[in-house]
């Protein structure tokens, strides 16, 4: 089955920022995104666990977004200022998709 190369951007970011990232993605009219829960983690800012938490602080979520390689740079440049001062990481990888027109 024919597949098409795309870029998968994954952003692990503090939960209070999630809404802003999403609003940003929606404003840019990316074809879509998905948000995944994260249970625990550690990074430069120390370690954390979601269980027992009542609010949004101290917890991360993972936002994943599949985009065309041509859009990648613009997306990263727009997202960078949002995540730069915050706790979080951004990774990019190659994926193949099966419905090209979908993205």
């Amino acid at each position, binding site marked *: 089955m024919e597949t098409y190369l795309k870029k998968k951007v994954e952003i692990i970011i503090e939960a*209070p*920022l999630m809404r802003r990232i999403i609003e940003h993605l929606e404003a840019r009219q990316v074809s879509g995104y998905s948000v995944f829960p994260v249970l625990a983690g550690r990074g430069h800012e120390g370690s954390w*666990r979601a*269980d027992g*938490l*009542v609010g949004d602080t*101290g917890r991360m979520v993972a936002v994943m977004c599949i985009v065309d390689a041509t859009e990648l740079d613009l997306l990263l440049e727009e997202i960078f200022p949002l995540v730069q*001062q915050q706790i979080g990481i951004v990774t990019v990888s190659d994926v193949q998709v099966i419905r090209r027109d979908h993205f």
Partner: protein
Amino acid sequence: MLQNFIEPALHNLTSPAILFFGLGLVASLLRSDLAIPEATAKLLAVYLLLSIGFRGGTELAHHGIDGRMLAALGAGAALSFATPFAAFAVLRATTTLRPVDAAAVAAHYGSISIVTFIAASNALDRQSITYEGFMVGVAAAMETLAIVAALLIAQRNGAGSSRPTAALWREVILNGSVVVLIGALFIGIVSGERGAALLRPFTNELFPGFLCLFLLDMGLLVGRGLEQGRQHLALPAGLFALGMPLLGAAAGGLLAMPIGLSPGGTALLMTLAASASYIAVPAALRLALPDANPSIGLTLSLGVTFPFNLVVGIPLYTAVAAWIAG
């Protein structure tokens, strides 16, 4: 007065809610794998907010609104706005915190901890001390104003990034816990005696039990926070987290007297002023002051001030309130 403190303080220490808090704390420090799932913790929080708001509303409907309510709301707002300035001054004078971090910590102490408020009202209930229903509204009013003050402080000190936007204000004001608390208060007012009677088994009879479960979870969180944030507990900051609540309580007590609050209401205003936020404010600050290190304020407010208020503060403020307003 000391006697009026020691007996309730011991009584407080053997209340199931405090003991479950201690159990969580010990379990966490011993590194037990005990954990309350996030969804459960959120359910418990919504339950407590809904119940305390609703009960305050039905109280309010029963006793009616009077001038003291407006005065108490004003006092709460003033405390919430003024406290961060005082806290900032103290922190800058006594610690080496950067301005942006000091402003962030100050915001925690201007705002309130609704769980501390709930524990205090639960302790009053157990001692059959009544309090004004509108104190729930005062709690809500104090939640967010401190953030405004902290942003002003940060900007003045060249530490705030940019001007707070309308989006930020909406996020701060429409914070889920504020919405449930105020919403339930209004619903309590509107639905009156009949509604109150209908919900009593849920909002009143189960309350102590759910509070135990919730404080078990808080104990786990405090233990975890103490472990992860221990580098922020060095002396000047650690002392601040014990002294600031006393300062706040004193201010709260002074404001309560001219208003003529009941002893119970006075104890609650003192508790509110003494308490520090660890849910709403930290989340808002991640949006408003992202440069601030989030773990300093959280360690001090959740790790030190919260247990201090729970174990020592609440009976202390209650005793003082009985004395000055009795």
